[in-house]
């Protein structure tokens, strides 16, 4: 099967982007320079084409009840016009995906899911929808999506004039804009930013307007460095089909005081097997699957994501370690091609990020 292309594919090619297969999509991994793309988002403003992500709509009188039952976070009591991050779990607590629910109205919710999980998520949700008076539709092919990110994303969005006051938008709030756009003050970089959903023609037009305003086009490579610097998890690395949100440090997204949700019964009594920790290295660059050892040389887990931080110019990583083997040591050892490198535990994300 040939890779799918977003509506901006030709634009990326014309900009000289390096394109790679990502979750079955031919996506820009970087344009001219990854480092400059990261810096643009931390200091100025950048834009990512993330149209590969999936959009589902849940509509009907029991739409809110259904979504609230599907996911672990509290959707029911969240305010209208809010975006809510949540894991989606099985009865045994394992994570099917992590997603964002957009509470447009009580009878109209949009769910944005990872590109690699569109089919798996949709089938799962579909198998539970019949008990509720609502419909579930996969509209992923109808939408393109841009993530405008960085301290200057606010003034950029003001200039695009999508028919509402940008200053009225709080962090994680949503707005409907002109020409059927949906805008959320969300992102995956730790900086202030906006994600803009719209039809393909509208998004293509917004992209070219952003280019004229001097916004830096950024690829998925920069996006991965940015999210890792602020320690956001990525499905397939920090999160997967075999672990629960409680193993991944996502306890804040599991609301046991909700009446019911899939996985609640299991997770209530579950003692997590793993912990997710943050590691910084003075020397060496950690990468996925490198072994993490304690100072006695015993392997206690592995790196789930690692990179050279552009901001800190040192190796940073998230790692999954076995809870009963990790005794809150401040220093651990990473095995890099047979050589041992010292790593320090970070309590806080490596980079603070400037979001409100």
């Amino acid at each position, binding site marked *: 099967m040939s890779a799918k292309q977003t509506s901006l594919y030709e634009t990326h090619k014309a900009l000289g982007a390096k394109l790679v297969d990502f979750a079955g999509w031919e996506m820009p*991994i970087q344009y001219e*320079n990854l*480092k400059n793309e990261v810096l643009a988002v931390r200091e100025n403003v950048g834009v990512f084409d993330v149209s590969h992500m999936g959009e589902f709509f849940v509509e009907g009188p029991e739409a809110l009840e259904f979504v609230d039952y599907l996911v672990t976070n509290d959707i029911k009591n969240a305010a209208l016009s809010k975006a809510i991050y949540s894991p989606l779990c099985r009865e045994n607590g394992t994570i099917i995906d992590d997603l964002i629910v957009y509470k447009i109205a009580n009878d109209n919710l949009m769910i944005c899911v990872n590109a690699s999980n569109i089919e798996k998520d949709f089938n799962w949700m579909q198998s539970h929808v019949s008990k509720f008076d609502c419909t579930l539709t996969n509209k992923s092919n109808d939408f393109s999506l841009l993530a405008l990110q960085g301290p200057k994303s606010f003034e950029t969005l003001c200039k695009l004039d999508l028919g509402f006051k940008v200053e009225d938008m709080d962090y994680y709030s949503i707005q409907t804009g002109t020409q059927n756009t949906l805008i959320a003050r969300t992102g995956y970089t730790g900086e202030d930013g906006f994600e803009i959903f719209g039809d393909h023609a509208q998004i293509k037009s917004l992209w070219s307007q952003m280019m004229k305003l001097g916004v830096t086009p950024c690829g998925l*490579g920069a996006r991965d460095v940015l999210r890792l610097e602020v320690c956001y998890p990525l499905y397939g690395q920090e999160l997967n089909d075999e672990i629960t949100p409680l193993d991944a440090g996502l306890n804040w997204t599991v609301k046991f005081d909700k009446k019911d949700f899939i996985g609640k019964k299991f997770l209530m009594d579950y003692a997590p097997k793993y912990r997710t920790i943050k590691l910084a290295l003075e020397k060496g*660059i950690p*990468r996925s699957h490198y072994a993490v050892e304690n100072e006695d040389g015993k392997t206690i887990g592995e790196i789930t994501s690692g*990179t050279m931080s552009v901001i800190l*110019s040192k190796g940073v990583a998230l790692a999954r370690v076995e809870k009963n083997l990790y005794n809150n040591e401040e220093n651990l050892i990473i095995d890099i091609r047979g050589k041992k490198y010292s790593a320090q535990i970070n309590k806080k994300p490596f980079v603070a990020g400037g979001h409100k």
Partner: protein
Amino acid sequence: MAQVIESLKYTEDHEWVAVEGNIATLGITDFAQSSLGDIVFVELPDEDQELEATNSFGVVESIKSVSDLYTPISGKVLEKNTTLEQTPENINEDPFGSWLIKIEMTNTSELDALMDSKAYTEYCESNS
């Protein structure tokens, strides 16, 4: 268009080889540094280590990737460029001036398998 230097020999892994007597000096090409992006880490073998042709002798890492370095030449490592361990970005700035290692060759006939600059230029064109 990536720069290619006429007097050097080249491998399919985008390394360049300079030959002087029985000593081969290895580096990575302009094409290689450009496709890797910002180089942030280099790991090279220690002096006196014996290398065998086609084996990996080290790595170069960019922000997002790890790439093995392969030697086309068998022999003993005479010297490694320790400067690059401190300033790996030199490779991006001057790939042909930033040699990685010098090898005392044990089998100079291995050089016959390498490409000249003309063949390498064509190889790059067909690979980009």
